[in-house]
């Protein structure tokens, strides 16, 4: 053992020896470095890793009661993994979940983070493995790796790797969906041919890195294996729990809990509304049944039995020995509606002559409008596997058209000034409504009224006029909100004050609201009425119902405007957006196609490719209402044409010899199918496409129509109270009769016209002023003390023989302040080089660093002193804000800088640096555009360049006509802005708003 003194002696002796030659010095340095690193490696690592109590065994850290259950009411792709969490004393930071299609190989699939101080806040931890979620993407590891801290027999691995040798065999264990960038699928695949039973199959092959990602979904009725590991805050992975099997099952659809039915008497119309289920993947039909009063009991019995059957099915999944319950009862309800499932959740049915008729579905159910109390309705969801679920029984509510909301008059148009991925849907006239109020004085007679308004692109609200009346109809005051700022003040008669002896809680203030708009004008008789009444709870006046042109809008926020859209390539509408009742417009996103989704089931290990099918939707045939497909390779199309022609010939020959009618029908169907393909490929469009022999050019041709059709939509709206009290609009047609709309990519943003004009004006002024400066006109620049003192400050450092510190701010090269700081650095460095004074430039941004080095180097060359340039005088410290300031302060103190320049963007660290500069008695000159830091600079520095002075510094120092012209242009522009400000303020004060309305809203 060597004691401390002996150690020191030996070390100093060793160091002394090393001093003697250079190589020895390097060795010493390395030795110190190694000692330092070893110390830091061993200490924190051991502190971090040894925090667990030795007395506790690892087994105590295994999660208990791990269960894997099927997720109910889903499409058979969901499993719920759950377990009992460990206590907070175990300091668990994360539970890691592993899954595999066999118990020998389980991969990390996700984790549940936990606060180690509080533990997991619940009795069980749940992890849901459902739907399409990440299988492999660019962030997955390249090779299969065992999970950390696992022995060689452990079945646990990290994430599924990007290795086809591993992924390929796993494709059969999951339903895999490849997300392929559009261009990769259109133009960059490799055709792969495979012969199976004399049948040639064609695939599009893509390398793994060509996929954006691979998503996975569990396959119904297939077993999967799960385990969970608890990880403590020192990243100790505890033993995994016993591996548990789980099997996802296809279940009956989710129960619909909010089903409403309404009968609109005067229109003889039934209306229904329901909430959509969460999982809609496997749903096939929406059905509605009418249940007569007398059949209610029978329906309840049927429903009870149905629920038992559903439960029995679930129980039998877990225990096949349980006896199957068979249906004995029939639904006593009469089917009145059956439609393919869509994301629409309202439907209306016309009652025609005391019956509900749907000839297409063979429905004819009697309905006596005089006995509506006898009718009840049930909503049924039906999935593709025959599973069904029923809603609550909805009693028929009776109403009339006048109690329904008014039909919204809506318009659909391209959203302007965008890249063409939004349509704008807007409706009705602007609405202004009161929101709140608050008293301004002790007497409670002065009131601030808060209001809000919603409008759309047709109307730009300029003025809002409020006429305010008391309860006797006398006008209290009128307010003209010529610049709507959402509040105004009024003075009320004393009788409204809650402290007044005349106070009556039922007393109301009545508001009549009118408005003036730009764009389309609202009619003069368009008046909104709303009252306010004192509310004891809020202790102020609160708004009551809003009346819009006489129409009472009760709880205006309860109404919803729902926009539905139908793509050109489909026959069903789908949900687009839902807006609250006060809203007047909504944006509908219409995305460009950027990715193609393809099922991945095959792979080619030799070629290192994943294989997907080659087909693609080419266009939608409106006549047959079908999507017509083609292949991305022309050779595949030609192969199919040749093959089908031959198949038709063979089938026709066989048809002539066959006598069995069934076989004949089958052959005829086969001929029709093949002939359909040939006919399609004979149409004009495909003939043109197939005449292009180059696959890439052919796909370019096909993609144009395909993508165009995918982005064309029809629109319609529903205005609803959420309880089947709704009105529907027709499909929107524009003035030219078009009913399909596509957003347009705009070439100019009209909102920015004022910006463009200002920029051009500024550009012109710069050109004009530079021209004047070049002609020798005298351009006065006011003296800036900070810049005038630069020479003196550098001279002081020279005299004192101490260095200069220049700090070009904390932001990156993209910040104008940094650029301005660097231009000043050039001048300062040149002067410093001339005087042979050392300049130190610590930088925070590693991109700024080489630029600053170049500038300082250039300055030394310019001054004729290249020998004095030291590259390491411009150096990077760190990107961390406070570590950086500590570094700069350290440099200042050690080097005892005589002059400090701070030129650029600064944050909270500014004061720390300048106070340190102060403490060493340095002359300090700062320049910054950071408004919050300028006061600190002014206080602690000798000279400060405020805001734009920083930008003007280079012109001031260089006295170059180009620079000065630029500076003068800024001054003239400022003068113009000042004129606008003064005139605008004066006009606005006089309630003349045309000038401020010229400028766009912020």
């Amino acid at each position, binding site marked *: 053992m060597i004691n401390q003194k002996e150690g020191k002696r030996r070390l100093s002796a060793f160091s002394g020896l090393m001093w003697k030659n*250079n190589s020895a*010095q390097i060795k010493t340095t390395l030795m*110190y*470095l190694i000692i*330092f690193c070893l110390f830091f*490696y061993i200490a*924190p*690592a051991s502190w*971090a890793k040894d925090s667990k109590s030795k007395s506790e065994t690892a087994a105590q850290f295994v999660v208990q009661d791990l269960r894997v259950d099927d997720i109910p009411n889903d499409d058979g792709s969901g499993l719920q993994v759950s377990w009992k969490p460990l206590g907070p004393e175990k300091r668990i*930071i994360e539970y890691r979940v592993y899954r595999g299609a066999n118990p020998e190989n389980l991969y990390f699939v996700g984790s549940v983070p936990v606060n180690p101080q509080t533990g997991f806040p619940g009795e069980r931890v749940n992890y849901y493995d459902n739907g399409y979620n990440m299988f492999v993407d660019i962030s997955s590891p390249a090779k299969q790796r065992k999970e950390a801290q696992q022995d060689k027999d452990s079945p646990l691995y990290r994430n599924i790797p990007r290795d086809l040798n591993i992924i390929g065999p796993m494709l059969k264990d999951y339903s895999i969906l490849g997300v392929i960038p559009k261009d990769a699928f259109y133009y960059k695949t490799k055709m792969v041919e495979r012969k199976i039973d004399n049948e040639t199959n064609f695939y599009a092959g893509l390398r793994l890195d060509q996929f954006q990602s691979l998503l996975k979904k569990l396959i119904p009725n297939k077993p999967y294996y799960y385990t969970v590991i608890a990880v403590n*805050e020192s*990243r100790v992975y505890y033993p995994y729990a016993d591996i548990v099997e789980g099997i996802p099952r296809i279940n009956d659809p989710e129960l619909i809990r909010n089903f409403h039915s309404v009968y609109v008497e005067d229109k003889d119309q039934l209306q229904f509304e329901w909430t959509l289920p969460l999982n809609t993947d496997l749903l096939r039909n929406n059905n509605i049944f009418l249940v007569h009063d007398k059949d209610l009991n029978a329906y309840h019995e049927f429903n009870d039995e149905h629920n038992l059957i559903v439960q029995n099915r679930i129980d039998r999944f877990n225990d096949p020995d349980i006896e199957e319950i068979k249906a004995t009862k029939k639904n006593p309800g009469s089917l009145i509606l059956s439609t393919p499932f869509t994301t629409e959740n309202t439907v209306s049915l016309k009652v025609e002559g005391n019956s509900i008729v749907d000839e297409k579905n063979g429905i004819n159910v009697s309905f006596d409008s005089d006995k509506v109390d006898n009718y009840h309705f049930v909503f049924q969801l039906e999935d593709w596997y025959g599973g069904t679920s029923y809603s609550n029984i909805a009693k028929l509510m009776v109403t009339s058209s006048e109690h329904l909301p008014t039909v919204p008059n809506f318009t659909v148009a391209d959203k302007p*000034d*965008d*890249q063409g*991925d939004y349509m704008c849907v807007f409706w009705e006239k602007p609405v202004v409504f009161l929101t709140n109020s608050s008293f301004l004085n002790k007497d409670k007679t002065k009131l601030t009224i808060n209001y809000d308004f919603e409008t759309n692109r047709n109307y730009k609200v300029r003025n809002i006029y409020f006429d305010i009346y008391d309860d006797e109809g006398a006008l209290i005051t009128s307010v003209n909100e010529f610049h709507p700022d959402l509040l105004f003040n009024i003075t009320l008669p004393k009788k409204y004050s809650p402290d007044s002896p005349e106070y009556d809680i039922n007393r109301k203030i009545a508001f009549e609201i009118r408005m003036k708009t730009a764009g389309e004008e609202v009619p003069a008789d368009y008046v909104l009425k709303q009252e306010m009444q004192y509310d004891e709870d809020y202790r102020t006046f609160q708004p009551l119902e809003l009346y819009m042109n006489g129409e009472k809008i009760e709880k205006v926020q309860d109404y919803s405007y729902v926009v539905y859209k139908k793509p050109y390539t489909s026959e069903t509408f789908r949900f687009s957006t839902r807006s609250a009742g006060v809203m007047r417009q909504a944006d509908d996103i219409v995305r460009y196609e950027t990715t193609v989704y393809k099922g991945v089931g095959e792979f080619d290990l030799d070629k290192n490719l994943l294989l997907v099918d080659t087909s693609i939707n080419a266009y939608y045939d409106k006549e047959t209402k079908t999507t017509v497909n083609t292949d991305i390779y022309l050779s595949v199309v030609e192969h199919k044409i040749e093959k089908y022609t031959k198949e038709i010939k063979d089938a026709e020959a066989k048809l002539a010899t066959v006598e069995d009618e069934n076989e004949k029908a089958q052959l005829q169907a086969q001929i029709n199918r093949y002939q359909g393909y040939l006919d399609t490929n004979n149409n004009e469009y495909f003939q043109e496409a197939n005449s292009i022999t180059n696959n890439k050019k052919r796909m370019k041709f096909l993609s144009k129509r395909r993508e165009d059709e995918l982005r064309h939509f029809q629109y319609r709206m529903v205005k609803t109270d959420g309880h089947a009290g709704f009105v529907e609009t027709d499909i929107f047609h524009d003035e030219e009769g078009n009913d399909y709309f596509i957003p347009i*990519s*705009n*070439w*100019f*943003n009209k909102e920015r016209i004022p910006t*463009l004009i200002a*920029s051009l004006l*500024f550009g012109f002024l710069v050109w004009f002023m530079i021209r004047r400066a070049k002609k020798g006109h005298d351009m006065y620049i006011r003296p800036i003390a900070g810049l005038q003192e630069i020479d003196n400050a550098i001279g002081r450092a020279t005299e004192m023989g101490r260095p200069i510190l220049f700090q070009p701010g904390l932001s990156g*090269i993209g910040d*104008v302040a940094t*650029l301005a700081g*660097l*231009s000043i*650095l050039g001048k300062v460095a040149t002067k410093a080089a001339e005087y042979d004074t050392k300049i130190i430039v610590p930088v925070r941004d*590693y*991109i700024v660093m080489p*630029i600053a080095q*170049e*500038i300082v*180097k*250039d300055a030394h*060359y310019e001054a004729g002193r290249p020998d004095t340039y030291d*590259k*390491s005088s411009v*150096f*990077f410290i760190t990107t961390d804000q406070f570590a950086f300031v*500590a570094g700069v302060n350290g440099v200042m103190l*050690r080097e005892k800088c005589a002059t400090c320049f701070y030129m650029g963007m600064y944050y909270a*660290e500014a*004061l*720390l640096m300048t*106070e340190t500069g102060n403490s060493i008695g340095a002359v300090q000159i700062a320049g910054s555009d950071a*408004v919050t830091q300028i006061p600190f600079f002014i*206080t*602690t520095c000798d000279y400060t360049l405020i*805001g734009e002075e920083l*930008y*003007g510094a*280079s012109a001031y120092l260089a006295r170059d006509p180009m620079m000065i012209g*630029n500076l003068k242009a*800024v001054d003239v*522009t*400022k003068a113009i*802005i000042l004129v606008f400000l003064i005139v605008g303020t004066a006009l606005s004060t006089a309630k003349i708003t045309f000038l401020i309305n010229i400028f766009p809203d912020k």
Partner: protein
Amino acid sequence: MKRQIPLALVIILCFLFVGHTFIPHKISDNFYQWWLSWVRTMTSFAVVLGVMSLFTVHWGKISRRMPNWQYSIVTLGALVFTSASGFIWGTQQGTPYMWLFKNVQMPMSSTMFSLLAFYIASAAYKAFRARSPEATVLLVSAIIVMIAQVPIGMAISKWIPEISNWILNVPNLAAKRGVALGVGLGGTAVSLKIMLGIERTYLGSGD
């Protein structure tokens, strides 16, 4: 050429990005996004420059036994150790890297930040000495604003919070907006100087 090519690139790209401000078209946006992805990629590679600079500067100090060269060993050691711990054990919660971050980096940063309170007091003392009419106005304004932030302000007079609000919202805001206006225009002018090739300091010598 080492100067002309970067200058040409800067000028062309400046005009393209100014164009992008006014052109919302998909082609323009695609180009902009494509460019941003390059910027992100290049920026992350540029960290090598910073690390190289750190090594050069501190290795020079160590090898030349410059004053306080021992600190450079600490700096380089910390750099090597911190990055290695991140590479070896990862950066998740519970790793040595996070331990260092929580127990070394955070406290030291907080210490530096907390020093600010004392420096602000010192700066305030310097600023508020009533040596001139302007400084007196500053002193009075500061007292009102500070008192209005605490309950005692309201207790003294209900006008104090209102005056404080007025000071903050009228003269203070007007001055801030004035500076912001100048900064905006000055920034535009610098950008224009770069676009037109008048300002070239950022390019260095190119030799």
